[in-house]
């Protein structure tokens, strides 16, 4: 078995986003999944159809605004997001952004709050409010997901619907190796959470297409403003992600020194290692 095949093994049966449902074309769109060229199209009935280069028809799910597929044979159904069926929410297709970095690095950055005041200055954070308060992190064995809860952070403009600075509460969830779901204080509906996701399509070990998607309670803001708010945030991250070294995410200690604020990242890396989810990762043993 080649090194490439080894690192793909455990992740090959996972679901990955490969396109927007709203932009399916009969003529198809050529893209790639873990180094393999694939084509995403819609059939005569308008259903998504994903094919490999050898003509093999790949498994498909149409969910959360996106087409999902897999090069292997998924053992598990695509992870649930119950809020996606909740009435009154607005669903936002933010659109694809390509990033020259490991798909795992993209998820890891999404899980980090300590960078908010420095990268998303005056939006998701601001100096001198740089302290990350203590929060809880666990790997939930029953659902096999990484969860971080009770994450609190002062934010000058937490969302498009926020007016003025608020202390925002976050919950992070990693239900699949290249996907994360963020639950965040919803300014217009204090009893509900806004849902902001990061769905990452691994093109190769150091190149990915990122498909952010949101399910929000916000009847005021225009769809374009919601898209642009999220694109602003993500594009502030992009240049940082493209400059991270080493390019692949190190799973073994030694390469990087974590701090207390990095608890979620440590749990994510531990969970990836436990499952041999190493496509886009760097192991000391290599």
């Amino acid at each position, binding site marked *: 078995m080649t090194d490439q095949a080894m690192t793909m093994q455990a992740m090959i049966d996972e679901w990955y986003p490969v396109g*927007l449902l*709203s*932009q399916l074309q009969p003529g198809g769109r050529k893209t790639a999944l873990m180094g393999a060229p694939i084509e995403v199209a819609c059939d005569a009935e308008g259903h998504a159809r994903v094919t490999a280069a050898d003509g093999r028809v790949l498994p498909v799910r149409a969910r959360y605004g996106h087409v999902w597929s897999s090069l292997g044979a998924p053992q598990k159904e695509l992870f649930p997001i119950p809020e996606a069926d909740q009435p009154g929410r607005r669903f936002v*297709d*933010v*659109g*694809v*952004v*390509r990033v*020259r970095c490991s798909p795992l690095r993209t998820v890891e950055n999404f899980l980090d709050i300590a960078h908010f005041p420095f990268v998303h*200055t005056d939006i998701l954070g601001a100096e001198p409010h740089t302290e990350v308060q203590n929060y809880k992190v666990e790997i939930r064995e029953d659902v096999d997901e990484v969860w971080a809860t009770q994450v609190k952070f002062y934010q000058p403009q937490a969302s498009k619907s926020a007016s003025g600075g608020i202390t925002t509460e976050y919950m992070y969830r990693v239900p699949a190796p290249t996907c994360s779901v963020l639950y965040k204080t919803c300014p217009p509906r204090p009893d509900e959470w806004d849902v902001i996701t990061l769905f990452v399509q691994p093109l190769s070990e150091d190149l990915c*297409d990122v498909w952010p998607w949101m399910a929000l309670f916000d009847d005021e803001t*225009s*769809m*374009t*403003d919601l*898209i*642009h708010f999220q*694109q*602003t*945030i*993500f*594009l*502030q991250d*992009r*240049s940082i992600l*493209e400059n991270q070294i080493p390019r692949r995410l190190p799973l073994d200690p030694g390469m990087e020194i974590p701090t207390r604020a990095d608890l979620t990242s440590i749990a994510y890396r531990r969970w990836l290692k436990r499952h041999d989810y190493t496509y886009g990762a760097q192991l000391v043993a290599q």
Partner: protein
Amino acid sequence: MKLYDYILSPSCYKVRLMASLTGVTLDLRPVDFHPGAEHRSAAMLALNPAGCIPILEDGDLLLTESAAMLAYLAAKAAPAWLAGEKPEEAARVQQWLAFSSRLTASLGGARLHEMLLRPGDIAVLQRQGIAALRELEAGLVEQGVRGMRFLASERPTIADIACFPYVALAPDGGVALDPYPAIRLWSRALRSLDGFIEMPGIHRLHELKPEPPIPTVEV
């Protein structure tokens, strides 16, 4: 003054930046460029048959070229940003305004390809972008020899604002800025101007750390 705007567009940012530097308030009308391709909708094509943004409306004036928008904002609110009386200065402003379209085509094309998956020959776009950057670097070095920090003058003009965004965002298209010290100094000078604003990928200038105290050495 109404600007049809996209937060990630360097050409739209030129106009937002110029407005901020000259104290003009814009009425921003966001356009769903990506993923919605609203700039190619019938309503937008009626405004600009070229199918691109920014578009600036003020009364019965409708502008679709960002260089014209910069000239208009400066003429209206801050004429010091236009060329002065010297013929060489006027010529250099025009030279770099026209040159800026090469930056849009090359570095801008590379950025759209690498970031938003737009079609294009990435190797050619990057090569053309590097050629343009080398020309800009040489131009800035020559200005430095003349004792001037900016492209056309000792003070910033609309030519600097026309060239700055696509240059600063070159790394988004996979073109590094490390080999161009004059461009980096020029970028720093522009980012330190009063009224400078950011866009995603172009960061504000972080304050310089205070100098470390140098202990006096007893001999």
